[in-house]
């Protein structure tokens, strides 16, 4: 159960946690003793499966439906978790999407949808979470960015802009709330085996020194560390997890 005795009582919320990296993060935080809110938009079955896995391991979890692009999502997400588990003291802004295309042909809708999901929604949910964290004088926010936020990847101008924005958002909010013992960090994965990346070709693997994609569990392990008491002095940083791809 790790360091669960040294921190205030509360819970974790992981957005987009019904599958992939989000599901692995929810399981990893539960292993550290956090009750976990498993947010999903459509995949109720996947979210329930994650909840059952956590509960069968002796942890607490609750599936919470909300489309994070809805400005009212934060109001829907937090009350059920606060009632059952106490304040949300760990927030992982994981939910994300891609709509790829070269910039000259990119529709406004593809730009706006990606920015809204990957960046604006993270802002709104973070704003709501900070209320409880500041009051508790403890909080951990981990934003799931991407190496594409730090390095060009043609065809992903919208995704890259959203993730670069998320990295800048991370460091700025960290500086704003650090003295309330709230940390805000980002994890920037490289290529990870998920449904979101399954259409990326094998030639991409040759650019990775590790010669393989990462696993959701390898990303989750980094989030687990950043959410822990042990990471209390790590603040405003972005941890790149890419098998050496950007080294």
């Amino acid at each position, binding site marked *: 159960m790790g360091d669960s005795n040294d921190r205030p009582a509360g819970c974790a919320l992981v957005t987009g946690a019904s599958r992939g990296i989000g599901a692995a993060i929810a399981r990893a935080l539960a292993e550290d003793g956090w009750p976990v809110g498993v947010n999903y938009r459509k995949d109720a079955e996947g979210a329930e499966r994650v909840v059952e896995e956590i509960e069968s391991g002796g942890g607490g979890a609750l599936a919470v439906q909300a489309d994070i692009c809805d400005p009212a999502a934060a109001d829907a997400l937090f009350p059920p978790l606060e009632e059952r588990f106490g304040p949300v003291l760990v927030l992982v802004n994981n939910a994300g999407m891609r709509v790829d295309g070269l910039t000259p042909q990119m529709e406004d809708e593809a730009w706006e949808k990606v920015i809204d999901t990957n960046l604006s929604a993270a802002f709104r949910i973070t704003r709501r979470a900070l209320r409880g964290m500041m*009051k508790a004088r403890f909080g951990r926010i981990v934003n799931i960015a991407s190496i594409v936020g730090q390095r060009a990847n043609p065809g992903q101008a919208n995704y890259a802009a959203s993730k670069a924005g998320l990295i800048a958002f991370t460091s700025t909010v960290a500086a704003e709330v650090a003295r309330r013992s709230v940390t805000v960090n980002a994890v920037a994965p490289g290529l990870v085996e998920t449904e979101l990346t399954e259409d990326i070709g094998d030639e991409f693997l040759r650019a990775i020194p590790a010669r393989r994609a990462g696993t959701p569990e390898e990303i989750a392990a980094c989030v687990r560390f950043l959410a822990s008491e042990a990471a209390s002095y790590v603040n405003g940083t972005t941890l790149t997890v890419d098998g050496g791809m950007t080294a």
Partner: protein
Amino acid sequence: MATANKDDIQERMTEALESFGADREQIKREADWESLDVDSLDLVELAQIVEEEYGVQMKEEDMKNMKTVGDAVDFVSERAKS
């Protein structure tokens, strides 16, 4: 919702400001934020407490006009009654 008596509001604000690190002895109506070492993040948290406990929203533009503890107490007291 907490009562909106002016003395009660001042006492609740004093508790909050003390929790931010201000010296209780110096928290008087005429004390300004700078003298109490109360910064913008503290004021954001004070606004949060006021909203939760008295149902009064203290927006950023409102806070710009509040220079002292008394200004904030009067603001909350007036709006909590209306």
